[in-house]
């Protein structure tokens, strides 16, 4: 079959040969489709958005940890006495008792994992977790929706510290 020259083509063939190959569906289309897929659970949010959220949560967790460690270290160097609660400075009372709490949990965590201390560790962990939950409930009461009360920062703090803590048979959530 001989090749077609330009002159052999009808208008139809010429039109087909010069046809468009693509059409932009518009910038909104992609966003709408991605949104629809996410709403149906078929796509996870973008890495950048996810990373931003995780970064904020990690930053919050690091702050909590830093405060916890600082308080723990400080408390480890002194013999504490329970603070006198003053109606004029409830924030100070919270800070001091919080530091005591962190120090007590740190002491608990340093108990050797021997069988004779197992019962103490177990009871201490139960008390520590209950106290933490009670504190979280109180914070939720005074600051509804407070992000730090929700689980992710605590979970992230736990995860980020897991590798740094000495290996123990029990896990500890730092606050």
């Amino acid at each position: 079959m001989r090749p077609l020259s330009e002159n052999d083509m009808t208008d139809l063939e010429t039109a087909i040969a010069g046809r468009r190959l693509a059409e932009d569906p518009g910038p909104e289309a992609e966003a709408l489709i991605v949104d629809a897929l996410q709403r149906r659970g078929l796509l996870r949010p973008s890495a950048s958005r996810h990373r931003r959220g995780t970064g904020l949560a990690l930053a919050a967790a690091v702050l909590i940890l830093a405060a916890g460690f600082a308080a723990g270290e400080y408390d480890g160097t002194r013999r504490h006495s329970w603070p006198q609660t003053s109606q004029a400075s409830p924030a100070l009372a919270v800070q001091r008792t919080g530091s005591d709490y962190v120090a007590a949990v740190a002491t608990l965590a340093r108990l050797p994992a021997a069988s004779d201390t197992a019962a103490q560790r177990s009871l201490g962990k139960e008390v520590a977790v209950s106290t933490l939950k009670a504190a979280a409930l109180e914070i939720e009461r005074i600051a509804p929706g407070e992000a730090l009360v929700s689980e992710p920062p605590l979970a992230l703090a736990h995860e980020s510290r897991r590798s740094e803590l000495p290996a123990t048979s029990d896990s500890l959530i730092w606050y």
Partner: protein
Amino acid sequence: MTDLATLSDRELADAVTASGAEWAFRELYRRHAPRMFLLIHRLVGSSRTDAEDIHQDTWLAVVKGLPAFRWDAALSTWLVGVAVNQTRSFWRRRGDRVFLSLEDHALSTQPAPTLERLDLDGAIAHLPPGQRAVVVLHDLEGFTHDEVAERLRVSAGTSKSQLFAARQSLRRLLHAPTPTTTDTRGPTCVPCLKTT
């Protein structure tokens, strides 16, 4: 950092199916959406709104169907099939009878459009849906009659007759003289124009 352009369609599709990776979907979308949207727009005719709706439904169906795709054909070929299916569903929902007998949809019963001489898409939009689908898939997308028939769920004979009618209609719409003798050059799809 991985350059997305170096990833194959399959690698991107695997990332979408395995973990719902948005970045992978967006890359697939940017690669294939312009061609898919044009195809859908041509199939439905002049309504861009309808084309947008079908286009969205098509991508939803694509992501749902990706895990079942066996990769025995190019992704782009499969995407065309999904787009055609969604367009057929649209016609069904609208109650369109797409493949009428050729006498039922003579162009003379429709208002004559005002077209530029080589306004192919304008002319295609003016065709009845069945003719439009066949000419788009056969002449513009390069599928064989058997492949067109499979995608449109019609016989290959219907595909051929609709294509014959579609080409005559298009020649008329494009103001070109309709050939009076049998066209011996075969289908006017672009691959044929390039290779013959």
